[in-house]
């Protein structure tokens, strides 16, 4: 038996994860509503996501849904329980290059870092990669330098 996850989302009442999936053999597209139990505004979303991912009745359906996707859905549910709007939740997932991350609380910061991790992991060279070089050096001083738009005239003190 195999299923291909197409889309997923949440339903606020009762708190549930909604999954649209295709049954690979029959090509039928179905909707599955998975109630999220024992989850409150104080719960740990990553533990809850992990529990759901390994749930014997749902795990086959959720195979194609990543842990971080499930975490996101739980965060949306939890934010809703805490009285935050959906827009607020969605905004917290976006990486805004102008946002001052120094002002975030631990949770929000961890979420932003989680998003940065996608690219980090993709570009990461590990010790066991065949082309790993510990002391990798590249000289950029010879490349043509244009002026950086990040330095505006008013900053001339630096």
């Amino acid at each position, binding site marked *: 038996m195999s299923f291909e996850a197409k889309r997923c989302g949440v339903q606020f009442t009762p708190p549930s994860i909604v999954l649209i999936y295709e049954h690979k053999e029959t090509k039928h597209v179905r909707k599955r509503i998975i109630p999220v139990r024992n989850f409150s505004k104080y719960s740990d979303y990553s533990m809850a996501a992990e529990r759901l991912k390994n749930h014997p009745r749902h795990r086959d359906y959720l195979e194609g849904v990543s842990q971080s996707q499930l975490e996101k859905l739980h965060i949306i549910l939890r934010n809703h329980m805490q009285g935050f709007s959906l827009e607020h939740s969605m905004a917290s997932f976006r990486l805004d290059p102008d946002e001052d991350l*120094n002002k975030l609380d631990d949770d929000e910061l961890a979420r*932003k870092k989680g998003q940065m991790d996608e690219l980090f992991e993709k570009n990461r*060279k590990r010790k066991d990669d065949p082309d790993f070089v510990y002391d990798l*050096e590249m000289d950029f001083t010879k490349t043509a*330098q*244009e002026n*950086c738009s990040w330095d505006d005239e008013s*900053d001339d003190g*630096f």
Partner: protein
Amino acid sequence: MACDVGSIPELDQKKYDSDEQVKIICLGDSAVGKSKLMERFLMDEYRPQQLSTYALTLYKHTATVGNKTVAIDFWDTAGQERFQSMHPSYYHKAHACIMVFDVQRKITYKNLASWYKELREYRPEIPCCVVANKIDADLKVTQRSFSFGKKQGLPFYFVSAADGTNVVKMFREMIKRALDYKQNPSDFMDEVMQELENFDLEKKENNSDEDGLKAQSPELV
């Protein structure tokens, strides 16, 4: 706790006066990659000591420079505002500073100015460098020039903690500069502090046999 210089009870900072003990600090906004850079440099050697109350992580490293073995403590703290009050002890006795920004977020570059200003309040002379991290995300940024620090002659590095570009080079050069500075310190801050402390003690001792009122407000006499 915030203002007491060198007062992290779990840590004895006196050791940094000895020749073989070096302290290098790292500054920069949240999520610019300070911790990832340390981890990339130290690889397996990395055994951090965490003091979560201060959002402080110490990474210990041993290096051989010339024929000398030195113990280097890298001090890493969070860029988050709520931790910024621990800084006096963070700067105390530091021998070099690595300032990091994220090439994908302009605001982290702009904030270098305030990190640098704070650094210079405590450590006017220690060697410092500017590090542009995450160049793997967009190699085009390396064609740009970033003028922050140019005037002060701070070395500048394009690096990536993800693929490792220039990370080891940057750390090795900073260790070297920290050692040079240690041999020829030009910051008198620590010495002055120490004298002030001694001065306070003497004053207290002198006052101790006078009457209480006087001792409490000597400047009014």
